[in-house]
């Protein structure tokens, strides 16, 4: 990105801006309702402002006072893409607060589901990214590759979205993996590895695509850290931070933290492509070393607990859930999705890009605004 086009954070109002191009909150280029104001000069974005807040559903408010099991299943409705991440983290809060040990077999099944979800989320991201690039053929092919993952998720959880696998103390009985299911997962991973590798090869060897994505929407490492960016968006700037490294659930598995150095659209896309291969590696380990035994620990008692926090690494970054328990019911529930941390990065990445690339710069951070709307402020017009 041109250095002159960069605006120092917090000093943006000193710039003289030629024109504003407001888009949204409803705009056919955006798959979710959000407002973006692009301040442009000769079609080059000088500054950007993203506003969300039209998708608020008040999930935390509804969770207040619900029995913890019901509240957990409600969290699954926060996101249609990473539904398992939400219910898993919500269940982890209860397990952490109540000191519940989860059987090893259940841990592995949870990891398999979560990594399958990461695969489907990243493949969706890549497909959408290619659609924004205008490359419909690649977009379609990625959707086809994703179908394998969706079918595996349906096999495990019974649904293509919202599989409801984790419950307090383990996983749901229908998520138990028999030999036939294990074989299907193994075959699916072989197929996915082959297809994703083929796609990656085609993708990086296409000069037109490389020209469109190299050096576009650049976010430097220091800016990413200053903006508290999270997940693959942060790793695309060269920062090797992945909470999975600190999660005890991932201790038995070997995987690499993927990073790229440039922080542009190319780096973001490549990080996700390579993370897919790491997810396949984790799933293979989890399936090949699936311990025998029960999948649910029923021997626990409900008790009142203070506010307990849990962080996990989900496809878009760091997900936070916390609540307290009172007579088996949820109190003071808070959810924070990774996209809230990445909105600053999205705005910043637009600066210096051509206006056609602005949407790409936003999409490269893998936004999920509908899940991010956790609070609203009502303004009287």
């Amino acid at each position, binding site marked *: 990105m041109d250095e002159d086009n960069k605006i120092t954070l917090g000093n943006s109002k000193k710039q003289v801006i030629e024109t504003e*191009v407001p888009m949204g909150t*409803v705009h056919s280029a955006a798959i979710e309702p959000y407002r973006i104001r692009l301040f442009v000069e000769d*079609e080059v974005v000088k500054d950007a402002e993203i506003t969300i807040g039209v998708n608020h559903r008040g999930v935390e408010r509804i969770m207040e006072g619900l029995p913890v099991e019901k509240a957990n299943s409600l969290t699954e409705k926060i996101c249609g893409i990473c539904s398992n991440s939400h219910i898993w983290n919500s269940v982890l809060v209860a397990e952490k607060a109540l000191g519940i040990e989860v059987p090893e077999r259940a841990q592995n099944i949870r990891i398999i589901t979560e990594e399958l979800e990461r695969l489907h989320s990243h493949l969706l991201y890549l497909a959408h990214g290619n659609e924004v690039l205008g*490359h419909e053929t690649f977009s*379609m092919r990625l959707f086809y590759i994703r179908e394998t993952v969706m079918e595996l998720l349906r096999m495990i959880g019974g649904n293509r979205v919202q599989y409801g696998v984790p419950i307090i103390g383990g996983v749901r009985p229908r998520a138990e993996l028999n030999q036939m299911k294990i074989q299907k997962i193994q075959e699916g991973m072989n197929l996915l590895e082959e297809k994703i590798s083929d796609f990656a090869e085609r993708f990086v060897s296409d000069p037109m*695509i490389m020209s469109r994505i190299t050096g576009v929407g650049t976010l430097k490492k220091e800016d990413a850290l200053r903006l508290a960016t999270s997940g693959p968006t942060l790793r695309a700037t060269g920062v090797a931070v992945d909470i999975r490294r600190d999660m005890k659930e991932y201790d038995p598995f070997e995987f690499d933290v993927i990073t790229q150095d440039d922080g542009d659209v190319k780096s973001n896309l490549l990080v996700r492509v390579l993370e897919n291969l790491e997810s396949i590696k984790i799933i293979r380990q989890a399936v090949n070393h699936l311990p025998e035994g029960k999948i649910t620990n029923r021997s626990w008692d409900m008790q009142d607990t203070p506010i307990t926090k849990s962080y996990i690494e989900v496809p878009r970054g760091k997900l936070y859930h916390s609540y307290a328990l009172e007579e088996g019911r949820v109190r003071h529930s808070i959810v924070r999705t990774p996209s809230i941390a990445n909105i600053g990065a999205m705005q910043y990445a637009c600066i210096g890009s051509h*206006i056609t690339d602005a949407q790409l710069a936003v999409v490269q951070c893998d936004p999920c605004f509908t899940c991010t709307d956790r609070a609203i402020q009502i303004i009287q017009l």
Partner: protein
Amino acid sequence: MTIVDSLIALIAVIGTLIVAFVVSVWLPGVERKFIHARIQQRIGPPISTPGLMSPIKFFFKEIIKPNSPMPRLYNSLPLIGIIITIFLLIIIMPQLYPLAAFSSVIALVGLLKIEEILYMFMGSLSKSVLSLNMPFPDVVKGAKHPDVPRSFVEELSSMRAFRLIAFGSFPIYLAIFVPVAMAGSIFLGDIVAYQQFNGPVLFSLAGILGAVVYFIGFMILLNEYPFSILKTKADVIEGPLLEYASKSRAYVYISRGILMFVLACIFSTLFLGLPPNILSWTILLNILVALIFTILMAILSAFSPIFTFKQFYPVVTGVSILGILAIMVSFL
């Protein structure tokens, strides 16, 4: 020319126009169903949908007043586009060659320019609800840059159309002048006659180079991927065409189909010496050229991302240089 001759010429012109219309309604379907859908491993729409059934459907839709400062003018622009395209077809027909002033390359270029300018007007007259008119309380205390003049996304299309008029259409005009240089005349009758005696321009080095340049120009003029910055999905969506609904939208679809056929016929006339004429079997070759152009364009567009100006400028510059080279070779 006797009255009978004039009558036959008139019938030939009308007949050719009918053939053009019939062929043009299938070309978008061929592009979408047989090429894009095949490459993308999906079923795709029925072949008649994009060019024929969609316009019919839109003809019977509720007429919605577009969000435009001059809605009638805005709505009439696609119809004007169709009329210009029909004129383009008429002037390349052999029946018009006796009226030399009307059937020259200058008239051809002039009409193509008007066709391009229409997009600029469309963009500046479209004020969609997607941008400025969407009520949202974002100009509040604390918002960034509260006093900045606002614009519509379609205005970007208008500005892009202006840039395309300035430089994007270089390739097609340079390619058109390759046969002119070889035949030594700007009149289409002379260019066709030259090829009847000396063989098609396409079968020479300059002709091959010119054909490549013409094809790129053909794609730019049709705003096809990767040259569709005028209506890229990422920001301006449909661009100048965004506010068209009902009958006007039907005209947009028809206009594009006819333009695909007419531009292919211009190529046949200038590079093969085969003007469209219902009274000759060579009209089948015109249809074949239109089909080949459509298929090639669809294949190229299926494997390309949309170019921004960063990619657009070098490509157009490179192709224009090739066009100049073709003209220079044609003088040898």
